[in-house]
């Protein structure tokens, strides 16, 4: 589904990604771990097409097509979903209106009929339960005045409605207490399926106790330092990230 080869990217003047290779197939869940500043969020943003991140080298194929040729909205419509680490507030725009517009943009792209307000509400109610989100939040402005937990639930709620092919979860566990973490993780697990792939980005192992990945990759200084199964996450928890500093680069040249 996703083939990343020798990906280099920079944000502003800083080279952040320095040669990423990653292959994700449908149905798989990949965890990306690593210390702060290792490039985890940049990788998420580059896949979603954030304009401020520039690809300097390498290739990203999504379902066989060159992903980098597509605008952010085109990627979203093709089924790439990014659950934001810091969901953005949009004052004056109701959450319901916003999400309905998003769902219909994606449906239109798929050649499906757009949902009217009544059908949308019925579908939304079903998905609200999944993340145990209060219906009242639908009538508030997008993320405005939401608590940290409410914002993250709202992200997963949107993911449930948009039914992406590839979901990228950027530090979805940050700022959540243990109960909220469990609810959000349950919601995510319910969305796992043979046709959907997920990339779960996290600093800590604790999210991976709830969302058990098929593969774990450890990012260090813009490269994948090491990869393994779910047990790698536990090992990291024990050893910390310090040992990565001395580990040799996994592959690729040091020059950008």
């Amino acid at each position, binding site marked *: 589904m996703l083939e990343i080869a020798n990906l280099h990217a920079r944000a502003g003047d800083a080279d952040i990604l320095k040669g990423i290779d990653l292959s994700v197939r449908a149905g798989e869940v990949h965890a990306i771990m690593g210390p702060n500043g290792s490039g985890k969020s940049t990788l998420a943003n580059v896949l979603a097409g954030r304009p401020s991140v520039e690809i300097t080298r390498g290739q990203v194929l999504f379902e066989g097509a060159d992903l980098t040729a597509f605008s952010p909205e085109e990627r979203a419509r093709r089924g790439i979903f990014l659950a934001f680490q810091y969901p953005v507030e949009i004052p004056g725009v109701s959450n319901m209106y916003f999400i309905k517009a998003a769902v219909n*943009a994606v449906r239109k792209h798929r050649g499906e009929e757009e949902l009217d307000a009544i059908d949308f509400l019925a579908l939304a109610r079903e998905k609200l339960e999944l993340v145990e989100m209060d219906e009242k939040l639908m009538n508030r402005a997008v993320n405005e005045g939401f608590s940290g937990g409410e914002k993250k639930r709202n992200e997963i709620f949107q993911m449930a409605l948009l039914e992406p092919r590839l979901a990228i979860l950027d530090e979805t566990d940050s700022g959540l207490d243990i109960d909220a973490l469990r609810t959000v993780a349950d919601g995510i697990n319910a969305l796992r399926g043979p046709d959907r792939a997920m990339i779960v980005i996290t600093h800590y192992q604790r999210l991976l106790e709830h969302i058990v990945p098929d593969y774990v990759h450890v990012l260090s200084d813009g490269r994948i330092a090491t990869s393994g199964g779910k047990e790698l996450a536990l090992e990291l928890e024990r050893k910390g990230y310090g040992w990565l500093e001395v580990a040799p680069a996994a592959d690729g040249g040091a020059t950008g």
Partner: protein
Amino acid sequence: MAESNDATLESLTQQEYKYGFVTDIAEDRIPPGLNEGVVRLISGKKGEPEWLLEWRLKALRRFLELLEEQAAPTWAMVRYPQIDYQSIVYYAAPVQKQQLENLDEVDPELLRTYEKLGISLAEQKRLSGVAVDAVFDSVSVATTFKAELEKEGIIFCSFSEAVQKHPELVRKYLGSVVPYSDNFFATLNSAVFSDGSFAYIPKGVRCPMELSTYFRINAAGTGQFERTLIIADKGSYVSYLEGCTAPMRDENQLHAAVVELVALEDAEIKYSTIQNWYPGNKDGVGGIYNFVTKRGACRGARSKISWTQVETGSAITWKYPSCILQGDDSVGEFYSVAVTNNYQQADTGTKMIHIGKNTKSTIISKAISAGHGQNSYRGLVRIQAGAKGARNYSQCDSLLMGNRCGAHTFPYLEVKNATATVEHEATTSKIGEDQLFYCRQRGLSEEDAISMIVNGFCKQVLRELPMEFAVEAQNLLGLSLEGSVG
């Protein structure tokens, strides 16, 4: 799919000002220049009574003095070359029969013009809830639903007709809110105003439909100087809306209007404006100078005047719709959205003058700047010594798109009564890459995302507009800002 998306985006961002066409119609126009002869000519064309001519001439003399003193206001945050008031044509009117008996007699070319602008003057085709007075250059060409309104005792007609048929009302109220000597542009208007709308709502009547005036500048080299006077008698209610457009021209055209509102005891006037004069091209060439004086007097106790404006057009906007809160417990409101894109400049706001006891005012101003646009909020809240228990709440928010535009806020507060409560809040934000990216990541196009964010920002104001026009205003906001984030 990608291609069709790109094509849509392209066609959207390249969309030009939609109302920029010119109607080819024979016009009766007088030579350019400003002097006593011109004022007498305008007054004569309208068969005005002597007192009105005298009033105009007083205004003219005052204006010529002001010109001599070079007293054009310079305090606003707007820059433009000096205007040569002797080069403007002060009267241009489509040639048609003097007295129209009904709409069938209106020149079909004019009817087509308004059709093209989305304003049908054929009553059966109109939304039944809106009566329209159509002002074309210097004259009113048609007023719809007059007969229906007359049944309720409501007078809704062109200003010229009101002078003929209701001189006592015009004489009593003309200049009573905005005197001829009020300010530079109001003085000019008082000398040369050519037409406009007049409405009178009798005691206790709730006007059953929206009244509206659609202003159209067509002729080149002219200015438009219209005057609107609305009187809401005791216990009456009226909602009034004005819209405006003009052709695309490389020259700047002056629009100096005066609007006077009078609300007597327990009366309410809701006045909404969608201003979409030609804003000039993307390099700042051409466009309307919109220098307008609008003021309402809440004369009676418990009266209310509410201004709502959506200002997207004009090269320069200079206007401060204001309320004089004389009556005890009277209420003034000002809701404004002002957009400046490309090289547009706006200096707009309000004055709330609290005179009566327990008077209350609300100011909500939303300024959006894009391109090289400059947007200033300028507002005065004055609490007079006798205005015991007066209250004001002001909120001024600015939204910036890009790095070359500007937003400025100039609030003036004068409080002379210690029992008054005055609150002022102001914010400035940038339409963030973060917000845009978030929307686009959910599948929304950049244009839709901007439109959504901007409409959200303006929601407090847009919800004050009559339903029929709220949608128009939302679309207009989207169009005005197209291509402004790159």
